[in-house]
Every structure is written in structure tokens, then in C-alpha cells.
């Protein structure tokens, strides 16, 4: 199987969908001539030309709203946010217009838009550039939220997202763009809403997504080696729709749960999950559900301390040992 970076995998998904469907168009700041702020769209302008790969001014409310309007008329815009953190200036367009227009029109209007870009901390860019809004987005019925952790998932999920008839918000990670992984050749499509067991185990289920999957897998190796504990890592991949069945099947096997997320803990994805797991699998649990989240404060700049604010392998290890105790 070919090995691609997460960045290349996303680029391939874009290129294949641009090729397949002439209504797909990529718009965003620096996506064209500059080849992408994070080089995700590198080469696409040369290949597809300026009608399909469109550089926008720094005008998120304007160009995302434009994309929403175009999608109502059947265009399939894939909008790049240079950082998902900038969603706040386009909040009304994303979460009033894209999320609500189907409902308010009684199902007459669809909004097949994809908004994609990185949403992560860990790059020392401070609080304004480190938001992880998957919980905020997923709080809005009508939208879909995807957070891929690997190159293969990034490619397969983005292709599904572009073909989807509902608005899909696709949250990448600048620290994953360079990560390599095997990506199946040819048409590789991963359905939204299907979790993936990234590591099988019997003693503890770690439910996680995004870059925290990597930390959890690293911690699981140490737990196996040093503590003889067998940890299962469930990668949600999609936040909404949510594959609770895979999570519950794992809980029925391990009877212990740790949720790991790069999220502030208050009203996070993890809090929703914890509620659902206890509600559906109370009798399966041998211990309270444990959670590890970002330390509850705006993102700190100080590089060594930011590492400790976010989930990392040693924090996951510590939390896992508590959950196993």
C-alpha cells in the first residue's frame, strides 16, 4: 500500500473529487497561488485552474456565506479555513445559515458544503489560534463533524464529506499534516459515522479521536509493556453522526472507559459520551468513566507548558492507570 502524509492524503481526496464532479470547487485564503497556507492544496491550481481553485480575500464571513449560498444552488464548495479558530468571525454563516436552512425551509433546500482546515493546539500560537470547536459545531443539529487521525481516514472521510448532501465540517490538525500512513490505492471512501478500533485490548477502552488517538496508542504500548495492561483504542473519526455501537461493544469487553480528547472539558464531546455510555452500559461498567481533556484554560503560549495543557502520552498513561486502578 502506498505511504502518504496526512497532507497528501487530503490533497488526493480533493483532486479526485474535483476530477469526478465538476460542481466541486475549492475556495479559501491562499489555497491557489500560494499553494495553501499548510500546502494541503499544493499543485491544485496548476492542475485545475482558477475556476475550480479560488483564492479568497481574508473575509471568512463573506466567502463562507458565499459558499453556503452557492451550495443551495447545487455547487459543492469545499472551503478552507486557514485555521478553524477563525470560524468565530463566520459563526453566523456556518451555524445559522448552513446548519439551519434545510430545517427552516421544511426540507426544501440542501446545503452540501464542506468546511475544512486545522483545529488544534500544540503549536504555540496562543489562545486565538488553538480552538477545537468540534463540540460547539456538533451541538447544532443539521451538521456533521469529522476529525480524522490518520492519512487513510483523512482521505476516505473527506471523499465522503464532499459527496454528502448535508454540511460537513472537517477538522484537521497541523501537527498531523506530516504524519505518514498507508493509504489504500484507488477509490478509498470511509463512511461518516463509523468508528475504528485502532488497537484491540481487553482491560480498558480509550475512546478518543484526532491527534489524541496517537497519544493514546503510544500510552497503550507503554501500558502493555510496563504494566501488562491490554488497552483498546477506539477512534471515533466522526463526532456527528456518532458511532456509539462500536464504543459500547468495546465497553462490554473491557468494562472500563477512559475518554481522551483535545477539548476543554466543560460540555465537551467527552461529556456527551460519558453520559451516553453510563446511560446505555451502566451494568457493564466496573468503575466510573474517566476523562482526560485539555487543562481548562485558554491555550497557553509557553511551549513546554502547552504540551502539558494538552493530552500527551504521559498524561494519557497517568489517566489510564487511574482508570485501571
Amino acid at each position, binding site marked *: 500500500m502506498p505511504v502518504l502524509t496526512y497532507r497528501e492524503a487530503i490533497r488526493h481526496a480533493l483532486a479526485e473529487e474535483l476530477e469526478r464532479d465538476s460542481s466541486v*470547487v475549492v475556495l479559501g485564503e491562499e489555497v491557489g497561488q500560494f499553494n495553501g497556507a499548510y500546502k494541503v492544496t499544493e499543485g491544485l491550481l496548476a492542475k485545475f485552474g482558477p*475556476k475550480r481553485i479560488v483564492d*479568497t*480575500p481574508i*473575509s471568512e*464571513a*463573506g*466567502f*463562507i*456565506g*458565499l*459558499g*453556503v*449560498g*452557492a*451550495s*443551495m*444552488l*447545487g*455547487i459543492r464548495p469545499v472551503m478552507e479555513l486557514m485555521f478553524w479558530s477563525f470560524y468565530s468571525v463566520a459563526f*453566523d*454563516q456556518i451555524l*445559522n*445559515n448552513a446548519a439551519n*436552512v*434545510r*430545517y*427552516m*425551509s*421544511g*426540507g*426544501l*433546500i*440542501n446545503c452540501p458544503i464542506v468546511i475544512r482546515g486545522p483545529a488544534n493546539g500544540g503549536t504555540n500560537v496562543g489562545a486565538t489560534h488553538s480552538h477545537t470547536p468540534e463540540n460547539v459545531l456538533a451541538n447544532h*443539529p*443539521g451538521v*456533521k463533524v469529522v476529525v480524522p487521525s490518520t492519512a487513510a481516514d483523512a482521505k476516505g472521510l473527506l471523499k*465522503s464529506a464532499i*459527496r*454528502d*448532501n*448535508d454540511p460537513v465540517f472537517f477538522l484537521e490538525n497541523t501537527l498531523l499534516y506530516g504524519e505518514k500512513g498507508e493509504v489504500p490505492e484507488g477509490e478509498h471512501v470511509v*463512511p*461518516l*459515522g*463509523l*468508528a475504528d478500533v485502532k488497537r484491540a485490548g481487553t482491560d480498558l477502552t480509550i475512546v478518543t479521536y484526532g491527534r489524541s488517538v496517537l497519544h493514546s496508542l503510544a500510552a497503550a504500548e507503554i501500558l502493555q509493556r510496563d504494566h501488562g495492561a491490554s488497552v483498546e483504542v477506539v477512534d471515533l473519526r*466522526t463526532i*456527528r*453522526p*456518532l*458511532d*456509539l*455501537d462500536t464504543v459500547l461493544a468495546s465497553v462490554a469487553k473491557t468494562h472500563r472507559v477512559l475518554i481522551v480528547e483535545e477539548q476543554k472539558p466543560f460540555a465537551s464531546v467527552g461529556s*456527551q459520551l460519558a453520559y*451516553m455510555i453510563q446511560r446505555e452500559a451502566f451494568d457493564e461498567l466496573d468503575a466510573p468513566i474517566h476523562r482526560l481533556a485539555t487543562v481548562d484554560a485558554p491555550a497557553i503560549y509557553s511551549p513546554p507548558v502547552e504540551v502539558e495543557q494538552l493530552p500527551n502520552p504521559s498524561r494519557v498513561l497517568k489517566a489510564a492507570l487511574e482508570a485501571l486502578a
Partner: protein
Amino acid sequence: MTKKTNASADKKADASVTPTSTSASAPINQRLGKEERIELYRTMLRIRRFEERSLRAYQAKKIGGFLHLYIGQEAVAVGCCSLMGPNDHVITAYRDHGHAIAVGMGLNELMAELFGKATGCSKGKGGSMHYFAPDRNYWGGHGIVGGQIPLGTGLAYAVKYKGLKGAAMAFMGDGAVNQGAVHEAYNLASLWQLPVIFVIENNGYSMGTSQQRSSAGDLAKRAEGYNMSWGTCNGHDVYDVRAVMDRFLRQAREESKPAIIEIRTYRYRGHSVADPDNTYRAKAEIEEYRRTKDPIQVFQHQLLSEGVLTEADAAQIDQAARTEADAAADFAEASPFPTPDDIQKDVYWEADHPAERKSQGRLFFN
């Protein structure tokens, strides 16, 4: 049974202060046949009678939430929408009943939506501020001031992307022009030469704030900063609306050029029916507009002087509009409400098309 429409007849416009339209001779109006002229008149009256009827239903507590009436502004929506070709599109804010009727939506589905009924145009899910009819190129009905303007720009983008000759008319109020998203849309429209006309319906007030107290400078002239063309017109005169809009619509369709048009108009009722309308303007001001500039009376006077309409025709058209509005209220009253089971329909395309669903997992969290 709901109350019947027998609102006091509109005050007759004073003939001495309603000179015949200076835009009657514009080619786009010259070309109109007798029936088409009468149709413009009829549509304005149907909007007014519909809204008067809805107001009484509101007072009878048949309608919830906000109700923003368009009374006084009818010539704007009717004039603009009468120019629509097959690839032209309309989007507006929450004061959206007039545009809905002007694009041809039926009074029954519109009234039923106000009543929150399943037979409403949005199945009772949108309400007064959120009317839509994509089959008539009518894209709403939007509740956030200025929020629809980027969408309208996107409609124009889609028209251009598809290589069609059409234009989008994106309507907003005079209070919306200070929203950031509106300016972002202006810039994109000009930068990318999109066929969108930004139509400012300047009724003088945003809620209780007069234009003078909210906006610096001329509203449409801001187009110059974006290198766009602009114009103004008299929104009390449906012929003038058509004459001016036709020019800019042509330019949009044929040369893919955007523009900003300020249409001067006036609303006779409060901002919404919850507005007691006694703090920010004088009753005499409203009376003066009604007496001298009412778009329906002005146009009636025009058509009478053209010999296109007789007093008897006008009375007959009015009676038919009242009857139609009453029937719409009866229809709405007799229609069923949606059920709690309907709450989670029309949220996701995929949830509503289970046979075609490709994703898995839970979409809803109850």
C-alpha cells in the same frame, strides 16, 4: 372560524400630490400590456390584504413570535420580482412576505406557515421570517440582519459558475448596511464581478433608529468604495422601481456586473407588530406618506389615468384580494399542526432519505 377581512378602506391618495409616474415611459414599462399592468397592481393589493389579514390573526393569537409587516413597501418587491427571468434569484431578510407573494407563492401556504401549520410553505418550521420557495428561485426569508447578503452573493456566484445568464437580487434593510458581512459581500461581488444586485430597501428606520442615527453618508454610494455602480429609485412608484432595476439587472445578466441600489420606501406599521410605534417618529409623518405616496394608491391613480383600470375594476380586484386573504386564513385555521414526530424531520438530508443514506451512527441525541 376566523374573522373576515373588512379593514377600513385605504385612504385615497390625494390626486393633486400624486403626479403620474415619470418612469411610465421607460421601455421596460412601455412594453407592458394592459393585463400585465393590472397584475402589478393586483399583486401589491394581494400583499397588503394578506398582511392586514395576518395582523388580525396575530391579534387573535393565531400567530406566534414576530410579524414584520411590509405594508407601504409593496412596490419594491413587486417591481423587482416582476423583472425576474428564469435564472434570476431573490433572497431577503425577515420582512419577507411581500417578496414571497411577488415571486408567486400562494397565500394559503404562506398564511399556514404563520399559523405554524404543517401545510405551511416550510411545514411550520420557519415561521414569518423564514419563507422559502427554491422552485421559484426564492431563497428566503432570513432572520439575522445582513446574514443573507453573503448567501445572495453565493447565488450569483453559482449562476456565474454554471455559465448561466442570470442575476441575484439580495435585499436588505437600511439597518443592514452597517453589518460587516454585508461589506465582505460587496467586496467579493465586485472583486469577482458577480451578477448580484444589492437592494437596500430604505424605509427610513431600523426598528426605532432612523437612518440619520445609524448610517454615515449615502447608503448606496458606498458602492464607489468597492468600484461598483449604484443607483437610487423611488420605491413608492412601481414603474420607477422597474425602470431602475431593469437597467442594473441587464448589466448583471449581460456583463456580470454587481451594483447597489437604494430604493426609498416607507413602512406604515411598527417594526413588528410588537412595536407600539410611538417613540421614534411622528404620526403626522406616517400620515403624510400614506396620503401622498402610498404605492398602491399611486399606482391606481396611474392606471386610472392611463385608462387601463376603472374604479370598478379596482374595487373588484380589491374585493378578490380580501376574499383570497380570508380564504387563506380559513385554510390555515383548518390545517393541522405538525406533530412532535415532525420535529426531527428536515434536519438532515440523510435522515430524510434513509434508503440513500451512506453514513452510519447516530445523527440525533435524545
